[in-house]
C-alpha cells in the first residue's frame, strides 16, 4: 500500500518553475531519498510534502487525503501525521529538552500526565533521557538532532520527513544519526522520506532514490544503480561516443577485487595483451565493498584483449570510445 502518492506536482515562484511535473509514490515502511544540488527544488518539494506550502497543480495524497487542496483547518490536522526533522534542528530555546519533545503532544491536545510518560519513552529511544531538564543551548549538534528526531516522532506520525538532517553535522555524528534513522525505520516500521545533497547519506539510508535536477526528476531507482551511473558520468571523458571510429580508443570498466589494485594488474595485462592501458579512474563499487571499478583507456582492443581482461577481472565492459589523442 502506498502511504504517499505525488502526482504531476508543479510549483513556481513568480513565473519561475521550481518543481515540474513531479510524480512518485512511497510505500509504507519504505526509505526514500531525494538527492539534488542546491537549487534543484529539494526544499520546495519538501515544503509541499510537509504541508507548509501548496503546489499550483498536482496532487499530494497522504493516506488518501490530498494535501494540495485540503482546507487549512483540515491541513493543520493532517500535518500532525507528519514528523519533520530540520537541518538546523529548530528547537525552541525557551523550552527544556523535555518540553520541546512534548510540544507536538501539547499541540495535539494530549493531557499532561500522558505527555511526560511519552516524552521519557522518546528520550530513551534517542539515548538522551538524562538531559530532559537541560536547554537546547547546552547540547551538541548531534544531541540537538536526536532531540529533533524525538520531537518529530512524538505524536506517532505516519511519515518522517528529513530536510538535510545531517548536513550541519560532522561525518561521525552523521553516521550515528543515520543509524538512528535506520533503526527507527526498522523497529517502528515508519516510512522515511529524506532530502539531501550528500551521496553518502543516500548510500547508507535509502532504499529508493529520486534524483532532482532543475525541478525535474531526472532519474530514479536503487541507490547502487543511481550512484554508479552518476559517479561514472562524472569521470568519463566528455567526448565519449558509443560507436568506434577509425583508430579510436576504447574506454573499459573493469570490476576487480580491492587487492588486485595493489598488485601490478595493469602491468600484467599490458605484458599479456601487448598493448598499453591508461588508468583513468578508480571508483568504489557501490554494491560490494571488497571490489572497485577501474576505468581504463586502451588503443588495442581486440577479442583476445577482452578475454584477457575478463580472465583477470570479475567483470569487464566496454562503455564507449574516444578519439585516440584524447
Amino acid at each position, binding site marked *: 500500500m502506498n502511504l504517499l502518492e505525488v502526482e504531476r506536482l508543479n510549483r513556481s515562484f513568480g513565473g519561475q518553475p521550481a518543481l515540474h511535473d513531479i510524480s512518485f509514490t512511497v510505500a509504507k515502511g519504505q526509505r526514500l531519498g531525494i538527492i539534488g544540488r542546491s537549487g534543484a527544488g529539494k526544499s520546495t518539494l519538501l515544503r509541499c510534502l*510537509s*504541508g*507548509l506550502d501548496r503546489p499550483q497543480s498536482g496532487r499530494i495524497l497522504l493516506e488518501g487525503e490530498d494535501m494540495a487542496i485540503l482546507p487549512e483547518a483540515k491541513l*493543520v*490536522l*493532517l*500535518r*500532525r501525521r*507528519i514528523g*519533520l526533522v*530540520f537541518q*538546523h534542528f*529548530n528547537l*525552541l*530555546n*525557551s*523550552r527544556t529538552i523535555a518540553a520541546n519533545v512534548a*510540544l*507536538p503532544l*501539547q*499541540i*495535539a491536545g494530549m493531557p499532561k500526565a500522558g505527555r511526560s510518560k511519552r516524552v521519557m519513552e522518546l528520550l530513551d529511544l534517542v539515548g538522551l533521557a538524562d538531559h530532559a*531538564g*537541560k*536547554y*537546547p*543551548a*547546552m547540547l551538541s549538534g548531534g544531541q540537538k538532532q536526536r532531540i529533533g528526531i524525538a520531537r518529530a516522532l512524538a*505524536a506517532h506520525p505516519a511519515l518522517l520527513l528529513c530536510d538535510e538532517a545531517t548536513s550541519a553535522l560532522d561525518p561521525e555524528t552523521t553516521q550515528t544519526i543515520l543509524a538512528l534513522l535506520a533503526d527507527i525505520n526498522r523497529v517502528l516500521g515508519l516510512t522515511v522520506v529524506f532530502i539531501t545533497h550528500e551521496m553518502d547519506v543516500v548510500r547508507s539510508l535509502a532504499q529508493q532514490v529520486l534524483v532532482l535536477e532543475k525541478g525535474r526528476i531526472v532519474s530514479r531507482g536503487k541507490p547502487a544503480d543511481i550512484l554508479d551511473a552518476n559517479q561514472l558520468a562524472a569521470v568519463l571523458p566528455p567526448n565519449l561516443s558509443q560507436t568506434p571510429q577509425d583508430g579510436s580508443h576504447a574506454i573499459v570498466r573493469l570490476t576487480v577485487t580491492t587487492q588486485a589494485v595493489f598488485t601490478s594488474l595493469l602491468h600484467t595485462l599490458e605484458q599479456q595483451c601487448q598493448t598499453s592501458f591508461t588508468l583513468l579512474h578508480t571508483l568504489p563499487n557501490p554494491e560490494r565493498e571488497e571490489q572497485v571499478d577501474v576505468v581504463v583507456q586502451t588503443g588495442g582492443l581486440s577479442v583476445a584483449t577482452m578475454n584477457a581482461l575478463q580472465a583477470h577481472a570479475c567483470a569487464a565492459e566496454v562503455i564507449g570510445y574516444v578519439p585516440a589523442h584524447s
Partner: protein
Amino acid sequence: MSRLILDLLWRATAETLEMVLASGALAVAGGLPLAVLLVLTSPAGLYPLPLLSRLLGGVVDAVRAVPFIILLVLLIPFTRMVVGTALGTTAAIVPLSIAAIPYFARIAEVSLREVDTGLVDAVRAMGGTRWMVVRYVLLPESLPGLISGFTVTLVTLVGASAMAGAIGAGGLGDLAIRYGYQRFNTTVMFGVVAVLVALVMALQAVGNFFAHSLRHTNPGRAE
C-alpha cells in the same frame, strides 16, 4: 538636606513611580497585542492582511510623530473625558500610555520579527494553529527581547513623566521645575537628578537581570 525637602522628594518619587508603572503596564497591555497584530498581518506574516497592517502601522507612526509635550496638551479633552480631570498624577497616566503604546509596539515588533522563521515552520509542521505559533513560539522565544524593550520603554517613561509635570501632573519633574528652577533651589534640583539617575539605573539593572536569566544561551548559568 532638611526633612521637608526629603519629604517632598519622597512624595514626588512615589508619584513618578505610580505614573511610570501604570502607564508601563498599559503600554504592554496595548502595545504587545498591537505588535503581534503588526507581525501577523504583514505581507510575509502568518495572517497576511496588507491593508490592515499598513493602517495600523500608519496610526502607530502618526502617534509617535507627535512630540510628547504637544500630545499632552492635545489629549487634554480626552483625558478629561476618561478620568474627569486633566490635572494630577492619574490624569497624566492617560497621555503617557497613549504615547507609550505605539512606542512599545514598535520595539516589541522588532523582537517578534527576530524569532527564527524555522521555529515558526517547526510548530506549523507539527500541526500547530496560528494562535499556537504565537503562544508557543513568538511570545516565549522573544521574551528576553520583549523584557529589554519594556525596560527601554520604562526609562523613556521616566523622562516623559517629568515633562508631564509641566501640566500639573506632580512627580519628580514637577518638583524640579517648581522648586529647583522657579525658586532657584539647587538642593532640590540636585536631589531630583540624583533620584532620577538612581531610578533609571535600578530599572535597567532589574530589566537586564530578567532578560538575561530567560535567555538560556549561557551553559554556565542556565540549569
